């Protein structure tokens, strides 16, 4: 490792480098220190691994988006003939119609891909990897090797899941929550044959990847903070990643156990989740199992999972709002407290997904209490973000726009959680489009906005160039408007009781009224999907031809901006900077500049020190 410690270029392809580093780069090559295979593929450098996660996540997001466009076509135009999709979907188009079982496969894979592969691996994997060492002041992750394994297990899992899309019997089709018995019995739906097997195998590798990553993140944050970086001086991003990693470590193993038991039921004749089943003309021998048990195991991961998705976005948004409002984040300690509160509560609310699944109603009461309490820390976060904007001096960078968009979507989606968390109201709303609208806003779109904000904000540090701001604005406004046009009307459809995962509603009088609205939603969804290509173009164009970045383009205070424009292996060419102050000294009275980086000692800023800081200056 020590031979790699010198600054090297770490950009993809022809990423720009200042001259001095470029020389080192050539120097490295002369000595064959870093074969391209170890530098770009089996890299142990956290920044390269982060980029690997990001680009894999983007590929998955495109696939997930294509799948959703396909089923939105079906929902918007249930009577249309889809022959023109034959070249893409082959035998899944039967007589001009989408096969109903393949429709279920589409929604299942859309959910799986977006929740796990994009918003867990792509979001948390990218930014935890990229930012934790840079912001806590470490040369790399605690174990670079485990970190590399984490990506490659994710890659393996991705390959398996991707291959399952092309199976003759179709990929898993029992919904992303894979409730047995549907997911356990190939007789019930063809997707529960090989497709489900591959889903489970893929997910096991995914869990391994998450655990390797999570252990690394937690260890790095605890052990590798630079001199002076106490826990109360950590940027909120790091707090969010830290708590996210803990949630993952504690909850993913439970999904592992659920997957394992399901594998046993499917392949080895056990009856953990199966009982009293007569299917396809045959009574099965399984007795005594409980499908509800699976739901408990699944949601014990599944609910923390939504916080695993959203908390990194919360952390990054806090950081970006403070930087671009040129104000300290309001209520730093309250923000940490609410993150901890959300983390703790996220483990005791899982059964609110199960109010009407036959679970004991007394448990329903308990989980309703716990669920609605989680609105309080979430509310505190929103109020603190608003207070951060108040009397700021806001620069609308693309990242800032997405951060503000995040807050807006989080409010819109979060509030309807108060309805769904109420067991009484959930009787009517459970599994309707109201739920779909709720979680797509609060965890889907919000987390995507956090992801976009993060990419726009940290792109200069990742690739040494700036993304085009104008394209960023266009991307933001199209996406922001598109998301609202899709998910606001979806609430109306949900209040009317439209069930989710329906291939069409034409068979029911009760669900006959919203054909026009569903068409509208489909058009908005497909347009919003196409708007993402503005981002994809901007991203890849800017990697190679974007405007060159400076070391600290946003005048930010955290440690990553004290590294060279493209930090090499080891992050800082010389000594790691020490930290003296919290990360939000923006617009401090008495200071000439409107930001004071964390590595500036109080002794250098006598004019702006607060009373208690004067003692620290000596």
């Amino acid at each position, binding site marked *: 490792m020590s031979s790699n410690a010198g600054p090297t270029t770490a950009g993809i392809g022809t990423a720009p480098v200042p001259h001095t580093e470029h020389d080192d780069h050539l120097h490295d090559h002369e000595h064959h220190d870093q074969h391209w295979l170890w530098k770009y593929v089996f890299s142990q450098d956290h920044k390269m691994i982060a980029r690997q996660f990001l680009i894999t996540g983007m590929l998955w997001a495109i696939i997930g988006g294509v799948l959703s466009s396909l089923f939105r076509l079906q929902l918007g135009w249930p009577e249309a003939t889809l022959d023109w999709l034959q070249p893409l979907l082959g035998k899944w188009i039967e007589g001009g119609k989408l096969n109903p079982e393949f429709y279920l496969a589409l929604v299942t894979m859309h959910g799986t891909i977006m929740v796990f592969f994009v918003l867990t691996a792509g979001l948390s994997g990218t930014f935890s990897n990229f930012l934790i060492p840079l912001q806590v002041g470490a040369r790399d992750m605690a174990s670079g090797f485990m970190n590399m394994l984490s990506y490659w297990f994710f890659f393996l899992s991705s390959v398996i899941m991707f291959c399952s899309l092309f199976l003759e019997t179709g990929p898993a089709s029992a919904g992303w929550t894979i409730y047995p018995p549907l997911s356990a019995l190939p007789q019930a739906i063809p997707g529960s044959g090989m497709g489900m097997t591959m889903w489970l195998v893929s997910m096991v590798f995914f869990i391994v990847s998450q655990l390797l990553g999570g252990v690394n993140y937690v260890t790095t944050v605890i052990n590798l903070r630079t001199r002076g970086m106490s826990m109360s001086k950590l940027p909120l991003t790091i707090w969010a990643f830290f708590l996210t990693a803990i949630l993952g470590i504690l909850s993913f193993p439970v999904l592992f156990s659920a997957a394992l038991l399901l594998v046993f039921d499917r392949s080895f004749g056990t009856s953990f989740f199966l009982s009293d089943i007569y299917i396809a003309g045959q009574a099965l021998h399984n007795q005594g199992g409980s499908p509800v048990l699976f739901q408990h195991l699944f949601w014990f991961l599944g609910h923390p999972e939504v916080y695993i998705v959203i908390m990194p976005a919360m952390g990054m948004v806090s950081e970006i709002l403070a930087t671009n409002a040129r104000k300290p984040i309001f209520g730093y300690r309250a923000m940490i407290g609410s993150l901890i509160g959300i983390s703790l509560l996220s483990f005791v609310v899982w059964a609110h997904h199960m109010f009407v699944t036959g679970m004991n109603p007394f448990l329903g009461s308990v989980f309703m209490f716990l669920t609605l309490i989680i609105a309080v820390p979430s509310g505190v976060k929103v*109020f603190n973000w608003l207070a951060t904007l108040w009397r700021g001096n806001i*620069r609308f960078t693309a990242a800032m726009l997405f951060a503000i968009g995040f807050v807006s979507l989080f409010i819109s989606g979060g509030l309807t959680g108060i309805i769904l968390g109420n067991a*009484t109201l959930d009787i009517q709303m459970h599994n309707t489009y109201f739920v779909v609208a709720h979680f797509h806003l609060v965890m889907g779109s919000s987390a995507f906005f956090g992801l976009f904000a993060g990419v726009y904000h940290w792109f200069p540090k990742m690739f040494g160039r700036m993304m085009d701001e104008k394209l960023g604005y266009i991307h933001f406004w199209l996406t922001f408007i598109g998301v609202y046009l899709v998910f606001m009307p979806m609430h109306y459809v949900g209040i009317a009781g439209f069930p989710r995962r329906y291939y069409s509603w034409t068979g029911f009088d*009760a669900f006959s009224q919203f054909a026009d609205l569903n068409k509208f939603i489909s058009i908005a969804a497909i347009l919003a999907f196409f708007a993402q290509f503005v981002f994809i173009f901007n991203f890849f164009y800017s990697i190679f031809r974007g405007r060159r970045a400076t070391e600290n383009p946003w005048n930010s205070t955290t440690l990553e901006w004290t590294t060279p424009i493209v930090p090499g292996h080891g992050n800082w060419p010389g000594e790691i900077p020490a930290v003296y102050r919290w990360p939000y000294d*923006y617009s401090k009275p008495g200071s000439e500049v409107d930001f004071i980086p964390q590595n500036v000692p109080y002794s250098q800023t006598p004019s702006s020190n607060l009373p208690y800081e004067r003692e620290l200056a000596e």
Partner: protein
Amino acid sequence: MTSLTILLVLVLLLVVFGLLFRLQILTAIFSGSYVRQIGTSNRVNAVLMLVFMVVGGAAFFWSFADNFDKMNPPIASIHGHAMERMFWTTMIVIGIAFVLTQVLLFVYSYKYQYKEGRRAYFFSHNNKIEVIWTIIPAIVMASLIFAGWKAWTRITGPAPKDAIVLEVMGKQFNWLVRYPGRDMKLGVVNYRLIDASNEFGFDLSDKASMDDFTASEIHVPKGHPVLIKIRSRDVLHAVYMPHFRVQMYAVPGMPTRFWFTPTTTTDEMRAKLGNPKFNYELACNQICGKGHFAMKLNIVVDEPDDYVAWFAAQSPVSKNADLMASYKQMSQQTGLGKGGSQGAKANAIEETGETPAPLAAQASM
């Protein structure tokens, strides 16, 4: 040929966009705004924030009002009316929070946009404010929880003793309905006895089965509590009756239940809605396979007299020649009907008198 033309047009469009993009960059470099930190676009974005709030907000309220009638399915049960009130009360509460926070977000974004020479106000924390905006939502939440909890315990509590009992069983991909007959007892069923002529798995060695009858739609009397016992024989399904605000999963191996009191007959509802074809419907609301979206069952709410007449006109299982013949044949072959019924009973899912274990707590509440 057409697809080639479309492709060509798309490619040309992309080229045009690319050129426009280059042009934009070159102009920006020329005018000097390329490297400037904060230019006119900052102001444009700030104004757009305000425009988004006003136009978006107006569009939202207009479309909400416009669709309001369509999004409210008519209600036909007692607890449904209570739920509806709670739903819209909660909607008003969250609506207030929604408007307040979104307006502050967009107005602050506009008002505190970058201005040359202004400095942001260094305001890092205020514990009093934090306490206030922790406690107020906590109080609001507590009251919502309390109301929800009261209603939840009432709705999920034990059904009145005099409730009409019927059983709905989900299977891929339709619903089967069974009534207990004159003795008011649902007979024992056993999934191992299911075959083409015995879709329910009746165990005819149980005398209580003999007068049970099956139906092709649900009939219930108006104004009388109805207890639906719910089963599934293959995968998960969910009984979802949107007009009655009823939903409960059908779980293989674990009978569930839901009780409600219908308030409006089908005829009354038809008259009220001016739709002579209106029917109450039961939909499957848990993904169950290919035919999930088509698992429909009609529900008829009768006047109590009509219900009694309908009930009397149904023909019990014992009159089902097919079923009885295959039962006789089977009991001769295996002795299942006589001595062997012990085994069948041990495996039986449905209770005869006592409550099944998973629901014991419910009954005692």
